[in-house]
């Protein structure tokens, strides 16, 4: 408590100072390279995003311990966009034009990313976006270090189909763009694999849905059609805990109807008694349980940094780890933090990830990742039960959506386009319908 007050006091006095400086010359450059951290620390998304702020602070601290970057110290600038989407845009603008940051690490929800995109475009800065998302986007100023649908959803469905012999599918999601798109892609994918339309049930629920009785019982009903059934869950954040509790209580066991989730990580499971959920699946590109020296070191550092031996790590944290190291490498390569130079230098940069390999930045601003399927364990960790043999390249434009299958993104010099149409040979989408 005393510590808190002390920090508070420090902040306030620092703030007063900052205010004075702002009043003076806003563009005064000191001898640090500033890194913006744009994650919600309050509001509905604080639950997920606060951790990412902490991991960024840790990474900056580690880099400074290694001697900083280009001979300068790094300085993290933290702001709170408060889960308020327009505020994300405002804060992004503040970070770039008032604080003069060289790159921003932030956003979680798609809408927050959409909200800041024009700002990054206009002010020509760099955003690292660490969360799995729906794809269908590639922007010059954004680097997507989370998974695209082909790095998460499709391998998971493949696994269920091949290993568990699933024939009937419930696609349950929160009603927003990521589940909608992912489910569209999965629907097309499943149909291409010969799954009949009546064997797919799609269900959407509002954010923060807490009464799952009817839906879980619908799933049970759907599952009693004599075919092996699985649930593909794109249910978001807060709604997962009551969903899994209801599953457990209604006796839906993983052996009967496995649930594979794309938004449930160690962090979400920390709020849950996972014993009844053992065997349900998640698909990610990283698990805390992955047994590699890099990961062990990262976890140890994290626990040390947060001074909490129970803190868990998760996939978006790894994404920031990769993204940050890529940025550092690209800045070193470019010898400057100038956005254009760094954006050019980023492509092809390859850094170790935490699962024992290297992730590389591709010309479409997405990265290569392994895909892991894990089963939930009684201790809230994931046990990897399957993984891709090689790395999977993030596919920004899904091959399973009719309007995006002809699109590619390549930000290298001659093409430099985020939505190049291979059919028409033009940059700028599909053209006339």
């Amino acid at each position, binding site marked *: 408590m005393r510590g808190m007050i002390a920090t508070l006091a420090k902040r306030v006095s620092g703030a007063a100072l900052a205010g004075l400086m702002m009043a003076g010359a806003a563009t005064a450059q000191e001898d640090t390279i500033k890194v913006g951290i744009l994650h919600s620390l309050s509001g509905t998304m604080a639950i997920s995003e606060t951790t990412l702020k902490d991991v960024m602070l840790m990474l900056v601290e580690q880099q400074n311990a290694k001697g900083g970057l280009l001979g300068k110290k790094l300085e993290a600038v933290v702001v709170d966009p408060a889960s308020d989407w327009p505020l994300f845009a405002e804060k992004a603008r503040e970070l770039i034009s008032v604080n003069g940051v060289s790159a921003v690490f932030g956003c979680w929800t798609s809408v927050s990313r959409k909200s800041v995109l*024009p700002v990054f475009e206009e002010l020509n800065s760099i955003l690292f976006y660490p969360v799995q998302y729906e794809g269908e986007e590639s922007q010059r100023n954004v680097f997507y270090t989370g998974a695209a649908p082909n790095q998460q959803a499709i391998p998971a469905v493949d696994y269920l189909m091949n290993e568990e012999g699933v024939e009937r599918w419930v696609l349950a999601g929160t009603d927003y763009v990521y589940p909608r798109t992912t489910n569209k892609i999965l629907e097309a994918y499943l149909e291409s694999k010969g799954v009949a339309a009546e064997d797919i049930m799609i269900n959407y629920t509002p954010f923060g849905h807490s009464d799952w009785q009817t839906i879980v019982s619908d799933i049970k009903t759907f599952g009693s059609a004599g075919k092996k059934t699985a649930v593909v869950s794109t249910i978001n954040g807060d709604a997962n805990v009551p969903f899994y509790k209801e599953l457990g209580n209604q006796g839906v066991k993983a052996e009967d109807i496995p649930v594979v989730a794309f938004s449930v990580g160690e962090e979400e499971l920390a709020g849950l008694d996972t014993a009844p959920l053992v065997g349900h699946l998640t698909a990610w590109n990283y698990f805390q349980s992955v047994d590699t020296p890099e990961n062990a070191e990262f976890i140890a550092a994290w626990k040390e940094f947060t001074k909490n031996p129970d803190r868990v790590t998760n996939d978006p944290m790894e994404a920031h780890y990769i993204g940050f190291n890529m940025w550092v490498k690209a800045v070193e390569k470019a010898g400057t933090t100038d956005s254009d130079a760094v954006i050019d230098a980023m492509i092809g940069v390859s850094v170790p990830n935490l699962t024992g390999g290297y992730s590389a930045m591709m010309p479409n601003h997405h990265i290569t990742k392994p895909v892991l399927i894990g089963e939930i364990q009684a201790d809230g960790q994931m046990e990897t039960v399957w993984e891709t043999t090689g790395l999977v390249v993030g596919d920004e434009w899904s091959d399973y959506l009719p309007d*995006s299958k002809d699109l590619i993104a390549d930000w290298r010099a001659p093409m430099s386009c985020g939505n190049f149409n291979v059919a028409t040979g033009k940059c700028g*989408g599909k053209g006339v319908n």
Partner: protein
Amino acid sequence: MITQRLFTGGSNRRVLVTALVLAAVAVLVPVLHLALPPSSPFHVPAYMVALVGKYLTYALLALALDLVWGYCGILSLGHGAFFALGGYAMGMYLMRQIGDRGVYGNPILPDFMVFLNWKELPWFWYGFDQFWFAAIMIVLAPGALAFVFGWFAFRSRVTGVYLSIITQALTYALLLAFFRNDMGFGGNNGLTDFKDILGFNVQAPETRAGLFAASALALALALLITSAITRSKYGMLMVAVRDAESRTRFIGWRPENIKVFAFTISAVMAGIAGALYVPQVGIINPGEFAPANSIEVVVWTAVGGRGTLVGPIIGALLVNGGKSWFTGILPEYWLFALGGLFIAVTLFLPKGIIGTWDSWRASRRDAAERARTKAEEDAAPPPVDPATGRPVRVEETPRAPSPGLSGGPAPQPAE
């Protein structure tokens, strides 16, 4: 007529001064932003233009709320809905302006419809490629909703907390509805990625300056209009309805009509505020319908002082300025500051900033008056009531009861 009335009233100097300041800001800030080089100490950076432009639309929203709440006693916990509807109408226009510059290059369908496999434009998107149509909808959509909602609610004599809660239910229902991707409004992501407004690039400094000026002028104009309304006989009636609805009814007025009119006008103002807000922040999404947002509007209004017109504007600017500042410098503790501010304002400034200022001024004037009259009284005989012949006793009258929640009686416990 209205303008004539406006300048005859000398009492409302504050409104005029504020309107003039706003008009000056509308000219000055764009000029300082565009004409001066960034190195000049008087240059207004783009960041400030965008930020203050946004605040000004919030201020317009707060002003709209003040009209119904401060004057008519209708505590709407759903004014964000009208703001958002205006914003969506503008957003739809801006989406249609993207044309074939979307990522999929579809000339008709917005991107979010393309990747969700929509084949054709839903009927309610027709017409939004024309600005005049969008402009009509900006006024009509919130206005019509407010009119219909108000027509039913006020005719049924829903008052007090009941009214407040159903306005909250209204905005909450709209929130859920707009979240649904099936509705065709872009779901949670809302509408983004705007390119042009009236042929101007929305990101260009000139456009931004123009939008800023438009917001400031809209606010100034709205202030003058609301001021005229509140000082008309109709404005007196609004206050009458707020203070004693049944008395108004028993002298032959229809409070429901008075309220519906105020509610509709206010909703239209809120819609215009939303429409100015969207191109400046570059996104409109269902989050604007969140009940918490509407409550925040109430907070701005209360902080500034309701029923003062200028107060809510100041409240909106101050609270939002504080929020922007605190989220930047105290990212982990700003909610303490903001929450503490609300508590402090209610406890120590119950009439808001302007209201408290006014009562402080009034009490000083009264004190001076008392001192003077006391001196006179000592010399002159007490005033005599001409009817009774008795000395007039100036009674210690209790403070006028606070209109509270739209003037309805406090909820009574029932058996």
